[in-house]
C-alpha cells in the first residue's frame, strides 16, 4: 500500500508538470483549420516537421487561425492517409504535409477530399507504382531550387578562404545533384571574385550511394579530411551525422543541408537550407490573404531565393541577437546579402541540371567541369 501511495504521488507530480502544457484553444466544435501531419519524427525534429510547423504557427498566430499537428498512428502510406482523415474530421481546411513520404497518401487524399487544400512540401503526388503523376487543383506541390541553396554554400565556403572543398551526396537523385552542381558553381564564382588562379580551388565530389549514418560514410569523410579537405558539404540525410562525427575528430568543418544543422554539431559552419517556414507561410498567405491560391494550385512550384525559398540561415533559433555567421572566419552577413540579392534579381542563375551519361546520374569529373563551365575549380570524383 505504501508503495502504491508513493507511486500515486509520483503520478500527481507528473500531472502538475504537464498542467501548463494544455492547448486551451477551443474544443472540437471549432475544429482546427490548418493541420500539419508529422512524418515519422516528432514535431521538434529540427528538420522538416519543425521547419514547416514553424511556418504554420507563424502565419496562424498572426491571423488568429486555429491550427494543430497530428501524429500518424503508423508510419505507412495508409497510416499517413488515416492521419489526414483524422485531420479533416478535426475540421482541417488546409493540410500541410512535410516530405516526400506523403506523395502517395496525398495522391489518394486529393481525390477523397476535394474541398481541402493540401500543401505537399518537397514532393509531388503520384500513385504507388509511379505510373501516374497528378497534382489536382486542391494540391500545391512545393519544391525547392536546391542549386541556389548549394550555390550559396559553395560561394560562402570559398569566400571564407577555403580552397579545398568536399561534397558528399547521398544518391544521385535530382535534389542531391542540384545541391552539388550549385555548390560547384558557387565556389567557381567566389574564386573568380577573389581573383584566384585557375584550378586553385579543388573539390572532391562523392555520392555515398545511401542516406545512412554508417561507418563507411564516416571513413570516407575521414579520408577526405585527411587528404586536406577543409569542409565537406554533407548532402544526404543521415550521411550528415557520419560526416559531422568525422569532422569533429579531424577538427574540420561541415556544411549542413535542408535545415539549419548548426544545432547538431559545432562543426557545422552553415547549412544550405530549404525555406520550409517561408514557403509554408507564403502559400498560407496566398490562401487566406492575397487570394492567390491559383498561383500554386495543381502544379509544382519551385521556391528559390526570389521568394525566400532557399538560403543560408540568417537567424539563430531562440537567440534574436545571435549571429548565424559566427562560425565563418571572414564571410559576413553583408557579403551574403549581396550574393543573395543577385540570385533574387536573376543576375546569377545557377544551372540545375546537366547532361550525364550514366543512367543513375553519377557524373564524371569531366562532365561536371564542362557542364558547369568550371575554370577556377578542379573536380575529383571518388
Amino acid at each position, binding site marked *: *500500500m505504501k508503495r502504491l501511495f508513493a507511486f500515486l504521488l509520483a*503520478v500527481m507530480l507528473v500531472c502538475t508538470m504537464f498542467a501548463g502544457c494544455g492547448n486551451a484553444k477551443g474544443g472540437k466544435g471549432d475544429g482546427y483549420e490548418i493541420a500539419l501531419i508529422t512524418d515519422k519524427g516528432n514535431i521538434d525534429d529540427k528538420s522538416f516537421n519543425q521547419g514547416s510547423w514553424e511556418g504554420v504557427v507563424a502565419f496562424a498566430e498572426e491571423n488568429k487561425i486555429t491550427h494543430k499537428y497530428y501524429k500518424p498512428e503508423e508510419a505507412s*502510406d495508409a497510416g499517413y492517409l488515416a492521419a489526414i482523415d483524422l485531420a479533416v474530421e478535426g475540421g482541417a481546411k488546409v493540410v500541410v504535409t512535410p516530405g516526400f513520404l506523403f506523395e502517395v497518401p496525398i495522391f489518394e487524399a486529393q481525390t477523397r477530399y476535394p474541398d481541402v487544400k493540401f500543401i505537399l512540401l518537397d514532393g509531388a503526388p503520384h500513385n504507388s507504382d509511379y505510373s501516374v503523376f497528378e497534382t489536382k487543383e486542391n494540391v500545391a506541390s512545393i519544391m525547392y531550387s536546391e542549386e541556389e541553396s548549394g550555390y550559396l554554400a559553395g560561394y560562402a565556403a570559398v569566400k571564407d578562404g577555403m580552397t579545398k572543398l568536399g561534397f558528399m551526396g547521398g544518391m544521385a537523385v535530382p535534389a542531391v545533384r542540384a545541391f552539388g552542381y550549385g555548390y560547384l558553381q558557387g565556389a567557381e564564382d567566389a574564386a573568380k571574385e577573389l581573383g584566384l588562379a585557375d584550378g586553385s580551388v579543388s573539390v572532391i565530389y562523392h555520392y555515398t550511394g545511401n542516406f545512412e549514418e554508417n561507418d563507411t560514410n564516416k571513413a570516407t569523410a575521414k579520408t577526405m579530411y585527411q587528404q586536406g579537405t577543409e569542409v565537406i558539404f554533407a548532402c544526404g540525410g543521415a550521411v550528415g551525422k557520419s560526416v559531422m562525427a568525422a569532422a569533429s575528430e579531424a577538427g574540420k568543418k561541415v556544411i549542413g543541408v535542408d535545415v539549419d544543422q548548426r544545432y547538431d554539431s559545432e562543426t557545422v559552419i552553415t547549412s544550405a537550407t530549404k525555406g520550409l517556414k517561408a514557403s509554408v507561410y507564403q502559400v498560407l498567405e496566398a490562401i487566406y490573404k492575397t487570394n492567390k491560391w491559383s498561383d500554386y494550385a495543381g502544379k509544382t512550384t519551385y521556391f528559390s531565393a526570389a521568394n525566400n525559398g532557399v538560403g543560408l540561415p540568417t537567424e539563430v533559433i531562440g537567440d534574436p541577437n545571435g549571429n548565424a555567421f559566427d562560425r565563418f572566419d571572414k564571410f559576413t552577413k553583408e557579403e551574403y546579402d549581396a550574393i543573395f540579392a543577385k540570385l533574387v534579381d536573376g543576375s546569377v542563375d545557377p544551372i540545375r541540371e546537366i547532361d550525364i551519361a550514366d543512367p543513375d546520374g553519377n557524373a564524371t569529373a569531366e562532365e561536371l567541369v564542362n557542364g558547369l563551365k568550371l575554370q577556377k575549380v578542379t573536380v575529383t570524383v571518388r
Partner: protein
Amino acid sequence: MHNNTTYSPKAFDIKKITSTKSFSAFTAALLAIFLGIVFGFIVMFAASPANAASGFLMLLSGGFRRLGDVFYFATPILMTGLAVGFAFKMGLFNIGASGQYTMGMYFALYVGFMWDMPDSIHWVACVIAGMIGGMLWGFIPGIFKALLNVNEVITSIMFNYIGMYLVDMLIQGNGTMYVATKTRTAYLPASAQIPSLGIKNSNVNVSIYIAIVLAIILQIVLRKTIFGYELQATGYNRHASTYAGMNGKKNIIVTMMIAGAAAGLGGAFAILAPSTIAGSSMTYEPINIIAANGFNGIAVALLGNSSPIGIIFSAIFISHIQRGGTLASLYGYKPEIIDIVIAVIIYFSAFSMLMNAALARFIKKRRKHESDNPDANRESTSDAEVNTVSGPDSEVSTPDSDVITPDSEATTPDSDVSTPVSDASGDSVQNDTKEGE
C-alpha cells in the same frame, strides 16, 4: 487437523468465487484499468480542464467508432503478448519478443520479395516464414538457458539488438527489397499481403482471426495437454517439477520456440498487412530502432495475466484505448499528452499483479473481521509476522513449517515470485524454510 471446519453457505460461496484464480486475476485487471483511467483523466484534466470530460469520453469510447483499426492494431501486440505471456507461464521472462518480432518481419519480407509464388499461397508462405524466423530467435535463448543456464533475460535482450542490426543490415544489402533513395523497403507485391477484411479505411485483415485462434490453441495447450501441465508446473515450482522427473531442458527450449514463433508471427502480421491505398504496403525502415511492439507485448501479457484468453482481451483493450486516444486529440490535446495518458493507463494496468495482492489482502481482512474464530485470527496475521522473520538461523524456521499452512480459508494471491508484491504471499515463507536447512 484443525482445518476441517464446515462453512456456512454464505462464506462458502464467497470463498468459492473469490478463490478461483481467474476471478481474482480478472478483478485485479479491472481494478488496475480503473485506476489507470482515473489517473489518465487527471493528466488530461491538468493539461486542459475545459476539454477533459469530452476528450476523455472520446478516449474511452472512440475505439468503438474505429473497430476495424482497433482489431488491426491489436493483432501484433496480441501476438507479442502471447510470446511474453506463454513463456511467463513457465517462469521464463521473454524480453526478446522485439527481436523475434523483427526476425519474423524479415523472414516474411524475404519470402514476400524474393520468392515467386501463386497468389493464393504466397502470403501464407510469408506468414509461415515469419513464424520460423521468430521461432529461430526464440530457440537460441532457449538453448542457452536450457543447456548453459544463461539467464534468458540477458540472452534475449542481446538478441533484440543482434536481430535488429542483422535485419537492418540484410535489408540494406538487398537491392530487391531496399529502396535506397527512400531509405526503406519497396512496396510488397499484393500477393504477399494478407487478405483484407474489407472494412472501409482500415487495414484490418484476416490475421486477427489467426491470432485469436492461435491464442485459443495456446490456451488449450496450457490447460488440456501434458506439455501445458509440465510447463506450468515448472513455472510455478521448478524444484517440484524436477522432483517429478520432468524434462526441464526440453520444455524450456520448446516453450521459447513457441514464444518466438508467436512474436515472429506478430512481426509477419504487421509487415504483411494490406494497405488501404492500392499498390502500397507496409514498409520496413532500417533505422536501428528496436521494435516497440515487442515491449508492448509485456504490458499486454501482464494485463492479461499471461493467460492466452486474457491476452486477447488485453491486446484489444490497449489497442482500443490507443485508437480512442488518437481521436481524443481532436479535442485539442497534443499527441504527446495523449501518449502520456495512454502510457499511464497501460502502466497502471500492468500493476494488476499489485492489485491482485491488495485485493486478496482486502478480502482476507474482511473475512477476518467476519470471523469470530480466534484461531483464524491468529493465523491470518501470520503472513505479516513471518515476513519479518527472514533470519539467518535454523531454528526459527522450524515453526514456519507450521505457519505456512494457515487455515484453509486463506485465499492466497497469485504466486509469481518475480513481482515484489509476492512478499505478502506464502512464497517468502518457502524461502525461510530453505534458508533454515
